[in-house]
């Protein structure tokens, strides 16, 4: 990579300014002014599209198996909640990584790529989809190096936990430009998002994550409950798609 000049020359700055002015004068005007009434159209809703179940859009079969095993260790099934996989976290990750999130569409992804401060998050050139693809492949390799011919899914829970712990500490060397500690943190964050995001995105099945922590869903008005002290809120959690208390499942 050629190093970029840190300071633009005065001449370049002025030339840039002039060209901006010219572009501004020639581009079609995209601003509108409204008067008289609000430009609000009736029934102009663009609701989020619910994730369709079935099939894999991003993960390869081996990755599905590995990711499911990891999710089941990060969020094991217990008396608090179903496992991460049963709650749909792998489906959530699959759909997110296959979509604009996986392609880093909302991020600035051009160089220069310098290692950032810990507070700045990931600064590398890989999209989330590339990070998962490379990270899971590196985990497969590391597992194979430890126990030749065996996969992560062949291990028992104790060994799996020990391996994940070493990932978390950064003790596993990926050797593909990724750092195991950063990757683990990233993967854990995404799995938790799957566990707590609205169910229409594929995870948090039956609002299991919300039931676990007592989150009543995205409601917008609690005024009626404000004066009711020390009484539990009894409404079932609601997701974007609705609530079990609404009934009417039959014709949905």
């Amino acid at each position: 990579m050629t190093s970029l000049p840190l300071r633009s020359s005065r001449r370049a700055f002025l030339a840039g300014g002039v060209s901006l002015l010219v572009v501004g004068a020639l581009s079609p005007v995209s601003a509108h002014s409204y008067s008289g009434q609000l430009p609000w159209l009736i029934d102009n809703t663009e609701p989020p599209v619910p994730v369709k179940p079935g099939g894999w859009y991003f993960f390869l079969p081996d990755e599905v198996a590995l990711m499911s095993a990891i999710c089941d260790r990060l969020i094991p099934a217990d008396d608090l909640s179903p496992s991460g996989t049963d709650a749909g976290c792998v489906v959530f990750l699959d759909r997110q990584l296959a979509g604009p999130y996986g392609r880093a569409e909302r991020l600035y992804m051009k160089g220069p790529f310098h290692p950032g401060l810990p507070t700045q998050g990931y600064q590398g050139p890989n999209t989330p989809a590339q990070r998962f693809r490379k990270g899971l492949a590196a985990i497969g390799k590391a597992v194979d190096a430890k126990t030749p011919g065996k996969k992560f899914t062949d291990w028992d829970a104790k060994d799996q936990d020990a391996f994940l712990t070493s990932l978390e500490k950064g003790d596993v060397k990926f050797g593909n430009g990724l750092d195991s500690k950063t990757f683990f943190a990233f993967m854990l964050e995404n799995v938790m998002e799957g566990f707590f995001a609205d169910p229409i995105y594929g995870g948090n099945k039956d609002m299991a994550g919300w039931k676990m922590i007592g989150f009543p869903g995205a409601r917008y008005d609690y005024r009626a409950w404000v004066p009711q002290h020390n009484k539990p809120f009894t409404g079932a959690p609601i997701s974007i798609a609705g609530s079990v208390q609404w009934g009417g499942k039959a014709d949905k």
Partner: protein
Amino acid sequence: MKRLLSLALAASALVAATPGFAEELANQVMNGRYQAILGDCSGCHTVSGGKYLAGGEALVTPFGKLVPPNITPDKATGIGNWSYQDFRNAMTRGVGHDGKHLYPAMPYPNYSMIPDRDLKDLWTYLKTVTPVDRKVVANQLPFPFNQRVVMRGWNMINFTPKTFKADPDKSPEWNRGAYIVQGPGHCSACHSPKTLLGADKSSGAYTGAELQGWYAPNITGAKRRGIGDWSEDQIVRYLKTGTDGKTTASGPMAEAVTNSTSKMTDADLKSIAVYIKSLPASEPAAPKPLAADDARMTAGAAIYRDNCSACHGAGGEGAKNLFPALKGDAVLMQDSVAVPARAVLFGSKGAQTAAAPTRPGMPALGWRLNDTQVADVLSYVRNSWGNAGAPVAASDVATVRKQGR
């Protein structure tokens, strides 16, 4: 308005030699413009957001589709070639230029009450409107209704030109209101039940009617379904601003408020209020409300709490001027659930008026609630807080959804 002014100026230049004439002409144009407001010409003859009076959205009648024609003074596509006599025949006899019969979607049975003087002024005004070259095929009815001659028979059965007869026992205010409501305001066109032939029924006038997928509610003095509980001031405020503070005009009524009633004088609005409050109350007795433990009510209560209560209030009290109160709301008490079902499925937008320029709006919930859920929440609001109405079936909601907005 600009055109109006320039016409008045041109007229004054032409007739400068005869002082008084220009002023007279300007007065005629201004009065004619007010007649167009009373008659809400633009309500039908202007496409939303389109050129003034250059033809409107198709009216879907039980007989087929009719498109309100271009009534700008364009010679080729409008009424530029009409004479005053043509116009008068159309307005009062239902017979257009070249003897063609009009369909009574054009409320000539009501307009026939307009006195000649006002009609002449209206004609004078219409000639000042900007001519627009826009061809409209008005008659899109299927056979046999597309044969305009059938209207001859219809007129024989349903139509006698009326002149308004003032009732000397009533106040001038009441009489003015009666004239506007029965005549140019053509309130019955939407609010009166229709016969099989599409004429106003002689009985049950103003007790509400289904129209183009909407339902124009009862506007008699009925307490539950009508405006019996409204004060005159409430009615005036509703017609002027689109809300009386508790309920909000929506759909075609919001348009009528925007285009017509909000531009009427306060005196005329008061007259309308006095008159409709005197309309004999007509409504069936309230049914017994659904029990609170009915499955539809419990589901409806949850749906209401999670989707509606933030704006309409946990007790259906609404928020003054902004969100309609559902407790005691007359629109919910009609036989038809078309209006509330549309509001829930597609959202709603209030009237925009000079007095209240920010139109309150309701978001669409049809993407989130299925037909059973919409039916249950409607059953709930119809049977809560003292309201009482027949439960709503999912099939009723399905019909409205299928029709679309």
